[in-house]
């Protein structure tokens, strides 16, 4: 079978696996965004706190993915949950680090202006700090998404979902019928999916650029999307 014939014959399966792959990655990134932003917000003011948070997240990222997936099997069993947790853990670091950077880079004069006109800490965070840090946070989300796309392929090894199945069964019987097609379609699928999702996130970045909503916000400030909603909007794609 040629590559294209293979694609034709396995169309339904491949589509389903692509969708699974995208779902687990985006779910993991969404959870990691919430966790990373929350930890970033909680620690960015304290030098010690944010150093520890970033160091822990970085340490997690150095654990080889095979090892982490394997270690999660005894307590959690095979299936969907261990890869989801592993992917989430990996995805936290870029988002956390960018949240901290984005928040600390805000002009102190602006933070003080916010305080000076009588904004409380939560309001400051929601209306000034997160919106201003958002482009940097989103850049972190994009890095996390790209990174976990690749790692998610390995999830198939522990019974997880996604395009990894194509790659693993291809590599397992190398030389056999279709083995090369399988490995190729799995790999290409991951790359194309990654590019497509990144494109969506880039678009999201344009749509949520700070100040973009100014025209409508000028009339109705409450209609501006709250940062939380924007952060999880990625899963909607």
């Amino acid at each position: 079978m040629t590559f294209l014939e293979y694609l034709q014959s396995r169309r339904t399966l491949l589509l389903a696996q692509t969708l699974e792959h995208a779902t687990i990655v985006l779910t993991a990134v969404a959870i990691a965004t919430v966790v990373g932003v929350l930890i970033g917000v909680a620690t960015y003011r304290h030098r010690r706190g944010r150093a520890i948070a970033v160091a822990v997240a970085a340490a997690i990222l150095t654990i080889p993915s095979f090892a982490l997936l394997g270690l999660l099997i005894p307590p959690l069993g095979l299936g969907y949950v261990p890869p989801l947790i592993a992917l989430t853990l990996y995805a936290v670091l870029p988002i956390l680090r960018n949240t901290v950077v984005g928040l600390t880079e805000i002009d102190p004069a602006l933070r003080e202006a916010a305080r000076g006109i009588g904004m409380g800490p939560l309001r400051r965070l929601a209306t000034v700090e997160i919106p201003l840090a958002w482009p940097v946070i989103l850049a972190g989300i994009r890095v996390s998404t790209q990174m976990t796309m690749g790692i998610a392929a390995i999830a198939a090894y522990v019974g997880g979902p996604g395009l990894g199945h194509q790659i693993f069964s291809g590599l397992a019987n190398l030389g056999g019928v279709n083995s090369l097609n399988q490995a190729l379609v799995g790999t290409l699928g991951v790359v194309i999916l990654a590019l497509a999702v990144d494109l969506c996130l880039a678009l999201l970045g344009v749509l949520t650029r700070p100040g973009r909503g100014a025209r409508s916000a000028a009339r109705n400030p409450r209609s501006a999307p709250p940062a939380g909603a924007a952060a999880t909007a990625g899963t909607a794609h």
Partner: protein
Amino acid sequence: MSDDVMISLDHVSKRYRGQKVPAVENVSMTIHRGEIVVLVGPSGCGKTTTMKMINRLIEPSSGRITLDGADVTSLNPTELRRRIGYVIQQGGLFPHMSVATNIGMVPRMLGWDRRRIDARVDELLDLVGLEPGQFRNRLPQQLSGGQQQRVGVARALAADPPVMLMDEPFGATDPLTREHLQNEFLRLQEKLQKTIVFVTHDFDEAIKMGSRIAVLGERSRIRQFDTPERLLAAPADETVAQFIGAGASLKQLNLRRVGSIAYDEAHLVTSQESPAAVLRHLDESGDWAVLTVDGERRPLRWVGPRDLRPERDTLDGVGIPAPTVEPRATLRDALDAMLTCGCGAAVVVDDAGRYRGVLGIDRLMRAITEMRETERSRDRGVAEASYYRPPMPRTLAAPAQRGGAR
């Protein structure tokens, strides 16, 4: 204390954590309702620190600050700050929000409904001289520095707070824009009668803006707290005199406004007038020049006999551009205007830029002479030459007491 005290600082000190010397040490002053008190002093002397303690952006290490009779530490800080307008250098506008959202921030926090906020935003934009339809929906980065500062002032005024704190609000603009903003702000203040604490390190600005000026030294120590007139006439000590700098008598020009002296009249003509008729008028009247104005009576150019070409039909583009000043400008501004055009006269215009009269250099000289004479008779006994040198006994007066006096 009398009820017209709005803000009082009572032996206030601030020592930042990890610093050996306090940034502000034992400062006491009272600020009355409706006055502009200017804090002026060298960089790093603690002006900003002193000001920020009033709205509790910085907590004093010791001492007491009251606002309208209430100890500020007994008030909720965010609520306190919503009652105090706050303007910082370069406006401090939120870059991701439109001009309207920036201005409407405090009213929104106070729970005003949307229609009222929108109306208030437009009203304030008008007040600070920005056309609402044009500026409402812009982002701060789409404004010039001077426009940003106006929006900053509008934001601080939004909920009509009785007190304003302004930290070098016109700091980052060119001298011309700054002068314009100052005049505009003084015009506003005539209407609004806010109690204002104004920080600057520009002494000329202090003289122009202040009802009273506190000259601060190291650790915010008050060296002298007095009206601009008294400060120029009798600096409390050598340091204050140095700070006032050379040319104290020239600086007195900052004390009088153009509006306070009589104007002359110029002969007004439109640009369509024929050069021959103008020449005839100049011959008959002995005037040195006529002033061309547009249809709205806004001054254009001075036209003298030597500018006239009898062979031409109109005065279009003839003569030298006429410098203008507002009645709120100081005599110093007027002198500047005369010197730049080299014509010895500035045209006084109203808010809409329409002709009101002419201020000639001779009138200016007469006003200066008058000012010196009043000054001299008030300070009889103080030799004229001792403008910079303090009358000895006065240096010993405690600044705090001095500050208490109106």
